[in-house]
């Protein structure tokens, strides 16, 4: 049975329907990616899973239990770590304090081995452990946001566009670490990305979203070879039609 099951979820911002009947599954230990252009509804899917938004229809099951409508702190306590879009580190807490807050739901006094684990993945953070989170660079803040979610020792990690705004080399480094986390920390990952190439390389299964709906799903191997994906998300096929290319570029903008 899947670790996470999202069934026919519809979520609204006031009167605006942002996702229109989305269903997806994440198996234990798997990496699943959701691709889609800006505004497709990817972030809303993650917010619905983690409890920050309640769906008007549909249900979310985690680990065999219905978590629809739970507050996000309860969902986190069940083992869902969330690396939100835009990193959202605590700007006036030090790096180490940020990490310790990440472990808040765990009933333990000493987190030194967890801190060592995070610093092992992100040595850059170890050098800055006494600095406020707000002083870090974008890449370091992304590392901190991932490290903070790791402190929860999650069974499922939600990752919202970790490569957004990062230099390509840094984005690749983060992708490499995400791939390592799955095997080394035995966690499942639900990865939302606009950077389709990176996401397809490290994921097992992928969904493609457009305007609040899932329009395609398959294994990442097959998605990589699908012509639509190559054209619109990987930018591989060069059609001569200018208008068509401009549209494609806009879809993958940012």
């Amino acid at each position: 049975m899947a670790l996470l099951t999202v069934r026919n979820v519809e979520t609204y911002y006031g009167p605006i329907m942002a996702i229109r009947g989305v269903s997806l599954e994440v198996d234990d230990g798997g990496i699943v990616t959701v691709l889609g252009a800006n505004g497709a509804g990817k972030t809303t899917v993650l917010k619905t899973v983690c409890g920050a938004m309640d769906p008007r229809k549909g249900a979310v099951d985690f680990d065999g239990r219905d978590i629809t409508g739970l507050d996000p702190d309860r969902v986190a306590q069940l083992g869902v770590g969330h690396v939100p879009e835009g990193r959202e580190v605590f700007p006036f807490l030090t790096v180490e304090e940020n990490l310790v807050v990440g472990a808040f739901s765990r009933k333990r006094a000493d987190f030194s081995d967890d801190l060592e684990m995070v610093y092992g993945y992100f040595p850059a953070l170890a050098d800055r452990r006494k600095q406020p989170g707000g002083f870090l660079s974008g890449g370091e803040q992304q590392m901190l946001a991932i490290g903070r979610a790791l402190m929860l020792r999650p069974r499922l990690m939600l990752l919202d566009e970790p490569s957004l705004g990062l230099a390509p080399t840094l984005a690749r480094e983060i992708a490499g670490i995400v791939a390592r986390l799955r095997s080394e920390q035995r966690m499942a990952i639900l990865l939302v990305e606009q950077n389709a190439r990176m996401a397809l390389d490290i994921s097992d299964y992928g969904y493609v979203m457009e305007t609040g709906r899932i329009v395609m799903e398959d294994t990442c191997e097959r998605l990589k070879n699908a012509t639509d994906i190559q054209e619109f998300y990987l930018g591989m096929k060069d059609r001569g039609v200018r208008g068509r290319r401009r549209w494609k570029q806009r879809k993958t903008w940012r």
Partner: protein
Amino acid sequence: MEVFQLLLSGLSQGCVYGLIALGFVMIYKATEMLNFAQGDMMMLGAFVAITFVNLAGLPFFVGFLITLVVMVGFGMGLERTVIRPMIGEPPFAVLMLTIGLGFILRAVAGAIWGSGPRTLDVPFAGSVLEVGGVVLGYENLVVIGGTALLCIALWAFFRYSRIGVAMQAASQNQLAAYYCGVPVKRVTSLVWGISAAISAAAGVLVAPVMLIDPMMGFLGIKAFAAAIVGGFGSLPGAIVGGLLIGVVEQFAGLYLPAGLGEVSAFVILLVMLMARPQGIFASMQQKKV
């Protein structure tokens, strides 16, 4: 040596403003709500202390500690029943609610404890300390010492305790704190509880130098001025702003024409708003929208 005595009584008065301002700023940082009943919480705390110390006859420090515990419970209960349902309402509505709450607290206190002024029985009342010809009232020293201890305790709490750090996290980015598993609603309740207890401590500390009556909470208005002067959203700023207003008020009361002492808090506020609108400690707490 009049200057020293004025300074001392100004500082002790300022401590009281500062403590109320501290409670006010804590709630603002955690919830972006302005609690205009903060001064009335101080009044309530003073009456609760009178109940335990004067009426029940408990030793002063025991009564003080019980008062703090009772007021933590009061603040948390208030948040849970009255404030939490207001989440998402316009700030103006919340403000009106807390103003109304002040009226209710004054009326209830008048009904329970009577409207006449009372004094809290304190062990150190009236005694003085003489240092090199300067006579220092014990009450003033206790206010200053008590405030200092309370500030150190609060600082350590926010800096070193897990729940204190989580409180800071929740005030810096509420949603991210939720994602970390911080029970933000319960933490917010606790902020209200601590804030009420700080105000109550101010009420108990000021009791020896001030008469206690249901209207004493109006001095909270000067505490709000202190919070703004200190740099709204800064905890150290709240204390510094309170001390500044307390001291200036004492000196203005003696050396300037009658009446200016009373308004000096607001003169400082005006001057500050014109000269340095961000306050003494420019608040770094820019909230994410």
